[in-house]
């Protein structure tokens, strides 16, 4: 049998001329790149990650906090815990990380008191909040609103459906996406893409405009509706539909690291920042001044007659910070003229400044005394807190 095959003719001269299209040196490099990393190197794509401290490397407050039953920042910088009476937890910075990905730290949540039947209004989630002024380039609330892609590594013994949410605090709008932990106690990389929101512009200020939340368990108030997978005005019942209850056993634990939230519909490789750059970014929201025994605080003297005081400078903060301190007899002191005077805590005169404060000891010292201010207890702790 004979088979005749006909093919269209090819104009070789035309094809060769196509190869002669002009492209610059950079374009040539990109065309010849073999990995996404090389492409990013060439196009200089930097500061893509909206998340701060996504590699979980910075933990100024400490590396482990037990007995968590309420809201607050505990270990890893910038990651807030929301716990509305949904179990008791230990949060820690761990060295358990996905192999071969370049990460060295992860955030771990371990259940220490279970709650197998959450009340309707209960919720447990880990979140990070962002200032609106940092996100104007998302063009939220316009027809050109950008899509966002969230990628992260996660591990848990509790398999099943988990929910991640973006919440617009300025306009009470939200969008959720589900992801599945398929294999127990195995690191898995998850990528979720959220469409751009053409409604609700973010305030261009230093307030909390947007937050990303990883739900770990919720009550009926947050799960009785239909998961809202497109941007909409908030209805609590649609926020975390299908979420497993990580709090149902004290054997449960959940790890996360390598978190990246970026513009676009595709996840790019995690953007590693030098440790010092990461720390500097965290300082905008929290800065540890001293923790433990014999840590220097500053130099000062008697203010307003007998009040011990020194001027404390710190990295520029998002807003006038709070002072986060431990309090106890003999925690803090001034040492001057061969004599020490101690007190239990500080108050502050901020003068509404984001870079300096005058810290006032709660004790009394002789008029005219000047000297060194430091900590003298292993439990001493003082920090500036300007978190969202």
């Amino acid at each position, binding site marked *: 049998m004979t088979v005749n095959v006909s093919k269209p003719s090819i104009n070789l001269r035309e094809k060769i001329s196509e190869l002669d299209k002009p492209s610059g040196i950079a374009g040539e490099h990109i065309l010849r790149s073999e990995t996404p990393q090389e492409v990013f190197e060439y196009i200089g794509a930097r500061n893509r990650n909206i998340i701060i401290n996504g590699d979980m490397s910075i933990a100024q407050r400490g590396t482990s906090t037990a007995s968590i*039953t*309420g809201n607050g920042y505990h270990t890893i910088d910038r990651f807030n815990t929301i716990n509305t009476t949904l179990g008791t937890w230990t949060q820690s910075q761990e060295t358990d990380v996905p192999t071969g990905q370049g990460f060295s730290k992860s955030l771990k949540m371990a259940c220490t008191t279970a709650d197998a039947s959450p009340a309707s209004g209960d919720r447990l989630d880990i979140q990070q909040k962002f200032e609106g002024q940092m996100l104007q380039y998302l063009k939220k609330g316009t027809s050109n609103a950008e899509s966002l892609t969230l990628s992260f590594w996660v591990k848990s013994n509790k398999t099943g459906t988990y929910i991640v949410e973006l919440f617009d605090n300025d306009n009470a709008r939200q969008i959720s996406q589900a992801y599945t932990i398929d294999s127990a106690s195995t690191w898995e990389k998850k990528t979720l893409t959220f469409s751009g929101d053409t409604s609700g512009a973010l305030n261009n200020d230093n307030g909390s405009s947007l937050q990303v939340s990883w739900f770990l368990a919720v009550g009926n108030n947050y799960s009785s509706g239909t998961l809202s997978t497109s941007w909409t*005005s908030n209805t609590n019942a649609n926020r975390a539909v299908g979420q497993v209850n990580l709090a149902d056993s004290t054997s449960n634990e959940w790890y996360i690291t390598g978190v990246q939230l970026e513009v676009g519909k595709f996840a790019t490789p995690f953007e590693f920042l030098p440790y010092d750059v990461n720390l500097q970014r965290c300082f905008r929201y929290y800065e540890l001044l001293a923790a433990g025994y014999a840590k220097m605080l500053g130099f000062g003297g008697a203010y307003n007659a007998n009040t011990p005081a020194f001027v404390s400078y710190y990295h520029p903060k998002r*807003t*006038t910070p*709070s*002072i986060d301190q431990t309090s106890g007899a003999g925690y803090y002191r001034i040492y001057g003229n061969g004599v020490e005077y101690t007190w239990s805590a500080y*108050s502050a005169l901020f003068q*509404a400044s984001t870079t300096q404060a005058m810290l006032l000891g709660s004790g009394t010292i002789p008029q005219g005394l000047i000297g060194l201010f430091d900590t003298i207890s292993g439990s001493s702790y003082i920090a500036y807190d300007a978190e969202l």
Partner: protein
Amino acid sequence: MIQTVEKVYVEGNFTNYKVTYNNSDRVILCLQDTANRHYQEILDEIINGNTSIFGDSVPEELQTDADAKLFKQQYNAYGTAVERLAQYQVALGVEEVREMQPTGEQVFNEETLEMEDVMHEVVVVQAIEPVEATVEITVYDESNPEAEPTIQTIENPLITKDNQERAEAQAVVNNTPQAVIDAWNEV
């Protein structure tokens, strides 16, 4: 949860509030600064009626800020509720609305001796059919897997959800103080 709030230092316009939490071994000091989250937590406690944390009475400056925050919350909630109520009811649908509009062309009217617009009928509101009032669902007896499933007729869940959201929105409107409504209507 905040346990106590007290003034610990006052000088000029600067006041520190000491905030203690149950479940915390640290003491938080914060300034009266609306962007400070600890200060916002104090205001939330006042709004939620937890004034016992202040001992004698709520400091006037805190009460003022809390009132302003509550007003803003109610204003935003009222706006959201009004917009929700303005949406059509899925059980009723939307009737088509037509009106006569000029086409852009004109013709000479020999009776009036003037040029007149040529009109045509335009749909200005598209009709939306109401959803089915009821739907049928198949119900299985979990305690007896071998039993035949039964068919039950229930209210369409879309209508149920719509009614629930509208009721919630109406409740917000009903509970909104008149001053907030007046402020909304002024804009």
